[in-house]
């Protein structure tokens, strides 16, 4: 993991106007993964999108962090099913294309 990919939690607290404890709670619930680097807690930049999504659901829908966790789990499951559906649709399309070309 490269140092430049890690964002100190302090910076995020300023950016999002949040308390350090809020990030720690997100970490404890398992919503985000915090990395300890040179004694300080950091967030990997790839997780920033996830944090922003959590914040929107928390702030705009007034869902507490446990509720956000439930929502995120259901969304993850939904995404898996969506991908599976896509895979099956594309697979079906392959057979349909073959049939049109008289290959089957």
């Amino acid at each position, binding site marked *: 993991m490269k140092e430049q990919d890690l964002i100190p939690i302090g910076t995020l607290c300023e950016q999002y106007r949040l308390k350090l404890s809020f990030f720690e709670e997100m970490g404890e619930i398992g919503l985000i993964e915090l990395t300890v680097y040179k004694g300080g807690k950091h967030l990997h930049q790839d997780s920033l999108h996830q944090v922003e999504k959590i914040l*929107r*659901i928390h702030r*705009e829908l007034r869902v507490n962090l446990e509720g956000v966790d439930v929502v995120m789990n259901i969304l993850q499951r939904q995404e898996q099913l969506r*991908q599976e559906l896509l895979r099956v649709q*594309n697979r079906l*399309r392959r057979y349909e294309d073959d049939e049109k070309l008289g290959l089957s």
Partner: protein
Amino acid sequence: MTFIDYYKILGISKNATKDEIKKAYRKLARKFHPDVNPGDKEVEKKFKEINEANEVLSNPENRAKYDEFGKDWKHAEAYEKAKQQQRYDPRQRTHYESSSDEDFSDFFSSMFGGGQGRRGRSMQFRGQDFNAELELSLEDVYQTHKRTLTVNGKNIRLTIPAGVKNGQVIKIKKHGAEGINGGPRGDLNIKFSIVSTTKFRRDENNLYTSVDLDLYTALLGGEITVDTFDGKAKLKVKPETPNGTQVKLKGKGFPIYKKEGHYGDLYITYNLKIPSRLSAKEKQLFEELAKLRSL
């Protein structure tokens, strides 16, 4: 431009209280928020309508104006113009320009002017990435070809380069979900799942297969014809070739990804086939051979 019934959108009566408006808005927002309905355009549109209705009805000034002009709302445009001419504030104008008007209907803009009345939602978010898996056969990826994929109701025409690998992910920029508050679109990541239904096994750019070799050719040597992935090739077999010998056919393997005209190698393993159902004469000759060996 058509009249929008904000009360109907929130499912409340015309004399709803502030609390009832808030409650109705929150309930609908939880249901139609884009983050909990990723990639659903209809839901996104609905969410914008709900937001717009809330912007108007939760603000007493806007609500009064909407109620007053709602029935004959076209007058509001003229009213608003006159009002704006009287009180032009360049700072406010800058504020309007900095935000996207796409979130609001023409009706709203006409009545309340640009983005007036909206909450400061200045944070932009990049749209969600879409991930799709595409299953292809080994034959499919032997040559560069085009394929149409349906992702979120949109058909995307893709050129799949020859030699694409199993598990390889191709990123198609800006084909993911739309950004939030004017943020950039996410990307579409397509993961390739390559299945082999042929007798060839692929490892990176090399292909592996096995061919049966009869005892006599293995012992005495000779020439055989073998199948390659796209045709046939003649192979010289050395005399006294042991079972399991592997030979390499250079450049007869799989195309190298994005290196047109370059191919890996084909490795062929010989499977020695022992003759069965020997005739009496064959048996006798083999016995003679065996005796010669034991001398």
